[in-house]
């Protein structure tokens, strides 16, 4: 693609130029449309919470304040939560990408005897859901309640990610493995030395999905570890604050009870905590991005 880039504008046909212009305008529209909700959250988080009630804030705060952030950083559990969130994201992502890609490799080997069986066995898990209670009982019997590992182990294998990686591997030239095989390399070596490096774009993608999933999950924290403050996560702390409003589904009848429920954390504080919890994971993206914006030069590897 680098050579494509170097082509001068002057050599483009009128049709090409029209395409370029249209494309640039289209992309600008996309930017404007998609950046808006996020800027809106940011502006609200920096606005005075009483003033926020009046509405009409778009991408710029009306009454600038850092009070909302001060309120959030007053929560002591935030540090513990941040530590656990970072840990589970890093450990969970590395393990999951490693395991999923390994499975994907075995499934991409058309000659592997268990290929058919394992594919079906794995694919069905995407659609079989046992429900909350059996899942909970399993974790309990495995002794994983109130442990850090409950964040990592149950989610390590995701069928979805496996199939994504496999579909990428299916497109790799088989000749590479052939030649390595002839050199006497075993299957694990082929996977680790030859296949993995070629899969960087898809691994980066899956890593992003897993990392975002790990970072954003709070339900496992709530379900299994809510009684242990040392194991709290950032996302769970956020949910606790946000939940003070969203009881709507279970709202009972009768006004004096409802009065209790209308007591909410101010919207601006909620937006501030959303920013605090979201920004760290956004930073991951640019690091991974280079693997799928620039094309891999497969040709070089082949030679």
């Amino acid at each position, binding site marked *: 693609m680098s050579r494509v880039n170097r082509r001068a504008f002057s050599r483009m046909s009128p049709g090409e130029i029209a395409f370029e212009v249209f494309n640039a305008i289209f*992309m600008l529209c996309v930017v404007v449309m998609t950046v808006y909700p996020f800027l809106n959250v940011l502006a609200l988080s920096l606005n005075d919470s009483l003033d926020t009630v009046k509405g009409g804030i778009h991408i710029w705060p009306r009454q600038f304040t850092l009070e909302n952030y001060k309120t959030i950083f007053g929560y002591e559990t935030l540090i513990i939560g941040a530590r656990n969130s970072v840990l589970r994201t890093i450990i969970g992502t590395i393990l999951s990408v490693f395991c999923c890609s390994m499975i994907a490799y075995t499934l991409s080997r058309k*000659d592997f*005897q268990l290929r058919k069986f394992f594919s079906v066995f794995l694919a069905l*898990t995407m659609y079989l859901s046992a*429900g909350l209670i059996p899942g909970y009982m399993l974790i309990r019997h495995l002794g994983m309640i109130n442990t850090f590992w409950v964040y990592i182990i149950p989610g390590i294998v995701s069928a979805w990610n496996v199939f994504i990686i496999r579909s*990428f591997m299916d497109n790799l030239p088989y000749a590479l493995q052939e030649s390595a095989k002839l050199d006497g390399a075993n299957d694990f070596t082929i996977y680790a030395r030859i296949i993995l490096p070629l899969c960087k774009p898809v691994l980066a993608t899956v890593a992003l999905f897993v990392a975002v999933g790990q970072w954003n999950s709070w339900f496992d924290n709530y379900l299994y570890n809510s009684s242990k403050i040392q194991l709290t996560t950032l996302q769970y702390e956020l949910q606790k604050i946000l939940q003070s409003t969203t009881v709507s589904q279970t709202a009972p009848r009768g006004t004096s009870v409802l009065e209790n429920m209308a007591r909410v954390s101010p919207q601006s504080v909620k937006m501030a905590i959303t920013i605090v919890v979201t920004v760290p994971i956004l930073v991951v993206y640019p690091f991974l991005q280079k693997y799928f914006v620039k094309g891999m030069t497969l040709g070089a590897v082949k030679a």
Partner: protein
Amino acid sequence: MKHSRGNQPLPVLPAASPARRNSFWKTALQQRWLYLMSIPFIIYVFIFNYLPLWGWTYAFQNYKPHLSFSEQQWVGFEHFVRLFSDDKFYQVLRNTLAMSFLGLIAGFTIPIIFALLLNEVRSSFFKRFVQTVSYLPHFVSWVVVASLVTTILSVDGGVVNDLLMAIGIIDEPINFMGKGSWFWYILTAVDQWKEMGWSAIIYLAAMAGIDPELYEAAKVDGAGRLRTMWNITLPSIRSTIIVLLIMSIGHLTTIGFEKQFLLGNNLTKEYSDVLDLYALNYGIQMGRYSFGTAIGVFNSVVSIILLLVANGVMKRTTKESIM
């Protein structure tokens, strides 16, 4: 199509031989590393995904959580009969499937077109910038998005109505959120707005794996941009698209309820209530575990049928499949 890597004939290792049994163990021995790499995970998947399925027995009992298994009362298919004789069930099923299909159509065209066009952006900086920005809305919660959308579509000073009135398309503001029959389309559009950039990532990754030589060759052939996109980029990400499509088709009935719930209102209920909300309202929230599980079993069965059909159709027509 001829450029697609996915369609290159794959060399198959020698498998069938006269002494079948012997050769089976021989191959197994040859593949010992593959076995080592997969058996631990087969056990893992069995424990974490298949063991808990004993919970499906709830669907055939009047399950009470404090009673032991032997003390539960068995009722056969009673909960299923109840489910299938409920008019509301068919209404929520209709809504769920309608929104799923719309989502499927939009979700498999818009992000792909976006990814294709983004892939054509020349400036690497601009490309990265657009990509980063376009995935931001994925991280904004539905509560916020729902509120933004209602404000934008508001009758009273909403941007869209003001715009339409200014250019003279309408004389009177339209109450977008009050029209039940529009809900499916509004929801689909908003969903794409929020998730387009995020969904495109996977296609961009697939495009990053395309051999640049293919583009060079196309250039030599004198192919234009659109032609290259159609003849090289799209076929190269074909297998990714099909795999994603098969997996999504299996999920047609399970689409969550959060976005529908938050974006909808009492005027759109007829069109915005979905199966997952129904399961929550009439199932676990009422302590009716068995009924809730019956809906879960129904979902799983439908999902697997859809998956098998999609997989089979795709295998036959495109030679791509996940199983």
